[in-house]
């Protein structure tokens, strides 16, 4: 998909807001970045105006390791979006990042039948359009 110009990228785009724009901007630079609380150190996601643990408003966008484990996953056999017709059956994964938060993404480089809960994953960055990069995950040591 990396060869698709932005005007041709037909899949749904993220709802970018003042809160989550730094996350999407970091992905463009191939960084996985989330807010770390300056007071208690908690890393939170989705992005929010204060810490979900201590409610401090002080936080710093921090690059994460990109390491994760597969918490759960689904495989879509039905084409809900026309832009996903050629992808069915496709997986969607919920990963638990090493730093704690869970993130919805997908797993590449492995057959859907080989997905296993708990498997070790690492982030890859997919420039799907001129102005959009998605975080995907692959098995550690995979292709």
């Amino acid at each position, binding site marked *: 998909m990396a060869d698709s110009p932005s005007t041709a990228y037909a*899949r*749904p*785009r*993220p*709802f970018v*807001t003042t809160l989550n724009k730094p996350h999407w901007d970091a992905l463009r630079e191939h960084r996985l970045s989330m807010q770390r609380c300056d007071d208690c150190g908690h890393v939170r*996601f*989705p992005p929010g105006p204060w810490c*979900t643990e201590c409610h401090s408003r002080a936080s710093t966008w921090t690059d994460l390791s990109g390491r994760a484990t597969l*918490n*759960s*996953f*689904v*495989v*879509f*056999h*039905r*084409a*809900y*979006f*026309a832009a*996903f*017709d050629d*992808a069915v*059956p*496709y997986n*969607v994964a*919920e990963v*638990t990042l090493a730093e704690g*938060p*869970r993130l*919805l*993404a*997908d797993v590449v480089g492995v057959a859907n039948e080989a997905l*296993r*809960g*708990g498997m070790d994953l690492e982030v890859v960055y997919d420039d799907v359009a001129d102005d959009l990069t*998605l975080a995907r995950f692959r098995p550690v040591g995979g292709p």
Partner: protein
Amino acid sequence: MSWELGDRTAVCGIGQSAYGRSLGRSAIDLAADAIGNAATDAGLTPADIDGMVVTFGSPLGADADTLAQTLGLDLRFYNQTWAHGRFTATAVQHAALAVAAGMADVVACLAAVSFSARVRRPRPPQPAGTPKRPKLGGSSDAEGAREGGGGHGEDPVYGMTSPGAGAALVAQKYFDRYGATSAQLAEVPVAFRAHASLNDDAIMREPLTIEDHQSSRLVCAPLHLFDYCLVNDGAAAILVTTAERARDLAQPAVTLAAWEPLPAGRREFIWSYPGFGIAQQQDTDYRAPGPSEGIYGRAGVDRGDIDALFTYDAFSIVAWLALERWGYCEPGEAAEFTTGGRIGPGGELPMNTHGGLLSEAHVMGWNHQIEIVRQLRGQAGPRQVPGAQHIQWANVYGDSIIYRAAGRG
């Protein structure tokens, strides 16, 4: 905690429209049947209704203010949740609070939906071979398109769409965590279909087998077609008033013995209980309320006194998690619990005796409230749970109501 509202409020009337895949009628038209039939059932007229809570408004359902104007109701109190199915108990609780506080005398609680009207909207001609799109999810995924994503985990960027996908995520984790299987999960829709076979109002009445379930197509794996509820047209309503007034009306009163409100926060995900580890939930042990704790204590009952259990069964898997959340079995034991006919007709703990969303109809849980009231009045016909005195509406997402048969005044 002190509990002063026990048995002070009651359901005095129940009413429904026809249920069907495509009735060819508007949601407001269907709502009139449900409200009118509920008023007649109670021995009232629509003019007696002065409050309303709607749980599923436009674009798929009828809105409360429009209903009031179109049906000529003079409402002192109304409220409406966003178009989402989880708010059944919330609506009943708000209605009960309203009548207890004197804000209204008789509150109609309802949803009226016409999914078929929505999909009949004109569309440009499609090329041959274009896949048929579902009625929920995809380009109509209003949940997933909002700020922060959808309430069922929708994230259309990755093609994660439709309420069922979030339930599938929970099912996969459940299977991994406890070694349960899809064939075991099939016991839930099979049992609910067996109930529905005794219900002339149910859309799906023909027997369903484990094999039928296993051979049905995968929609969002690991969930099969028969793990999904129906998407249909229909309306259902109940009338809530004070217990004192209910005793003077036409039907045996069914009181609200106790309730538990709907929680939210990072401990919660709609299709799993705290500690299950989906979305931002912690992945820890979960402890259910003890048999006389919480809602059971407030209702003055033991969990063993509950004669039947009703739950919002949008997807089969959430029936398992509801059983575990409310302590009917331990986490990981629901797969075993639901085998052997325990939740089916004549079982030890009948669940959703009308067939639920999975087999009767999807009316946002209002058809469940109607069936609970029928059971506690002794009006459930071939599905009657003998001597039913207490029935619990209890959901995976943490809200509940214990209804009690209060009889005639």
